[in-house]
């Protein structure tokens, strides 16, 4: 390789490199240490499992959003799509309806379909992703309300087990979250679709001229986002044993925040599943800690805002330092 003589490679320890690339992790560690000192309840096994369970839905939504954000898009519809998928599942599985596995597949299919509609509007209708998915935010929520007549629907018991804890220490939502995270990481790092997402987000025109079928890849990207949203919606409903038409309202901003806190850029081409996971954990730890510390409800919003800003600030400052 033509590493010229003036190229001086400074040796940095692998740990330092890894930390610089995962600045959000530093913020998470600081947060965890701080909360353990402030609240004696924080660092118990059950509480940490609670945090995991509480992070699960946001994390799964955020994994799906990572795909979209890596391509330089945005998906505002994930919260609504999650609710719609769960409602379709529960509504389909009523005693008079389908067997629960069929209903579950239907719920997932609805999520994927919503993603495909987004993608068609974006890739072929040339709508800005913000607008296409904002429209879907309204449409999916509205359909969830129409189907459910505005009332929660009980989930079939088999699906509701997704909200259980196996033994004492293995909450199913945490397992689902980890599995979806690994799937997201593999897709992003190892598959054609994933690598194409980075190329499209980095320079769409260059990707197209390199033979990547940009439109088709966008279909895959948004379909994945919709599918992940459906999974998140079903996990959420299983925790409540009922599908709620108003579930996950506003979660899209949390999901996007988790992705960006995790180091992705909204202009595309950057982002990793592990970072997103850390981002989702930061949000969950924060909410959990503020509850434990009995911070007043009004001040909680202020504190969450400040900590989110600080967490990303830590990251950007680290980056600037090491570059």
């Amino acid at each position, binding site marked *: 390789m033509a590493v010229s003589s003036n*190229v001086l490679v400074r040796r940095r320890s692998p740990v330092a490199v890894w930390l610089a690339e995962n600045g959000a992790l530093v913020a998470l560690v600081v947060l965890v240490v701080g909360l353990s000192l402030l609240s004696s309840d924080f660092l118990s096994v059950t509480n940490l499992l609670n945090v995991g369970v509480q992070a699960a839905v946001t994390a799964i939504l955020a994994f799906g959003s990572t795909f979209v954000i890596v391509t330089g898009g945005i998906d505002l519809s994930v919260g609504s799509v999650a609710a719609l998928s769960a409602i379709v599942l529960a509504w389909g599985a009523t005693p008079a309806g389908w067997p629960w596995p069929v209903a579950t597949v239907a719920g997932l299919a609805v999520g994927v379909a919503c993603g495909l509609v987004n993608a068609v509007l974006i890739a072929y209708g040339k709508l800005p992703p913000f607008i296409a998915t904002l429209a879907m935010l309204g449409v999916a929520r509205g359909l969830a309300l129409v189907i459910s007549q505005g009332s929660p629907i009980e989930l079939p018991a088999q699906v509701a087990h997704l909200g259980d804890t196996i033994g004492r220490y293995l909450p199913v939502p945490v397992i689902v979250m980890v599995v979806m995270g690994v799937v997201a990481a593999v897709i992003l790092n190892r598959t054609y679709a994933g690598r194409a997402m980075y190329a499209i987000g980095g320079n769409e025109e260059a990707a197209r*001229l390199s033979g990547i079928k940009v439109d088709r890849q966008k279909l895959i990207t948004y379909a994945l986002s919709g599918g992940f949203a459906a999974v998140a919606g079903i996990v959420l409903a299983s925790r409540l044993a009922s599908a709620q038409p108003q579930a996950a309202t506003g979660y899209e901003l949390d999901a996007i925040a988790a992705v960006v806190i995790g180091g992705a850029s909204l202009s595309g*081409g950057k982002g990793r599943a592990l970072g997103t996971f850390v981002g989702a954990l930061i949000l969950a730890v924060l909410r959990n800690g503020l509850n434990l510390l009995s911070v007043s409800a009004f001040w909680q919003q202020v504190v969450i805002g400040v900590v989110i800003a600080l967490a990303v600030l830590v990251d950007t400052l680290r980056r600037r330092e090491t570059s």
Partner: protein
Amino acid sequence: MTGDILRAEGLRKQFPGVLALDGVDLSLRAGEVHVLLGENGAGKSTLIKILSGAYHPDGGRVLMDGRPVRIRSAGDARALGIATIYQEFNLVPQLTVAENLALGRPPRRFGLVDRARMERDAADLLARVDVRVDPRTPVGRLGIARMQMVEIAKALALEARVLIMDEPTAVLTTGEVEKLFAIVRQLRDEGVAIVFITHHLEEIPQIGDRVTVLRDGRSVAEVPASTPHDELVRLMVGRPIDQQYPRRPARPGEPLLKVRGLTRRGVFADVSFEVRAGEVVGVAGLVGAGRTEVARALFGADHYDAGEVTVNGRRLPPGDVHAAMEAGLGLVPEDRKGQGLVLGAAVAENLGLVTLRDATRAGFVDRRGQRTAAAKVADQLGIRMAGLDQEVRTLSGGNQQKVVIGKWLVAGARVLILDEPTRGVDVGARVEIYQLVNELTAAGDAVLMISSDLPEVLGMSDRILVMARGRLVGELPAARATQDDVMAMAVAEVEGGRVQ
């Protein structure tokens, strides 16, 4: 010494993993054209970015009129009378030509921007550089050459004492280069000090007074512009280059690429030609002749209204890049930043972009195999980088160009369309690219080479097609053609030549 208007002493600049400048000196006199010469990645652009306030040096100092100065921003440089034309375009595509010319200092009346005056000023400036374009046109709609002329006009508007030009001629054709030289000479005679970077060595005696040669981040020599060509090359590359255009014609075989009656309304019309296996076909023409458009259309990047394209006996569906690639076409676009590279991604990623599909089994990409292939091509092209993981954004311009060409080499295209392939590439690397062209054609592949660099077209092609106003106006055998022949054809008035 006393006449120095600007001096740089011992400048150092460290990037992560790269020491770009390692003690560079430069002295600049009023009323001279000072050429900066060096291989791709030698540090030329870094040096002038320090002088213009875009980067801060890690060591060394800059003096103006003998006094040390601190240039911390573009505003500081401007206040000191330093104007810069950067290698990468620094225009705002959405804004009009007039606004770009007045960027950062629009004329104002009663606190409001005075558009009428801005447009009048712009018209005057454009007239000075002899560019005919409506000042109200958004810059994004101009071609790359006219953008460059707008950049030049923008720098002129500052009426600076020091004018820095980083490869201004790279994207210009002969006519425009002449215009630019006339302007530069006039400014020089008015006492402006000019820093001029170019990879076209033949321009140096025409325009330069002194030459500073950079190598690996150090200034290795300061010589008069009259220094012989071979000597300059030796100073720059560290070894002599015996043949600048080492074309070794292969025996033409079957036609690989056939284009029949290709037409796109308002852009080009009735373009027909063939490229045979083992052939290099050059395409010459003035800027805006439509060569780029034809190349993009036959590659499937743009739609066309009529005609057909056949590659290796297979007729290509219009507007389908993927099908074109499958058939064996490859395109190295002229706008490397906008169309050729994912700037934020690593060298390895960019080199593997075209072969991503081929390296995929059951949806999974063989990333290790891709990396090995990328390393091989990077080595072959001599890409100067800190490693395969370096962001392409931070490569020098010429090395970026090598990456764009490299990704098609990895892919093994049968017919490679090169649009301005050596734009911004240093003499040494250029010869390496030519060698590659030779190897491709020797192996029975074909090359269609669009270039505004006439000596290159003449030196490297087997046949030359000439385009003017969206039509093919003639064909010349490269062996007997001269620059004058080509130019005569390119500018000839074509009867009823306006494309409908």
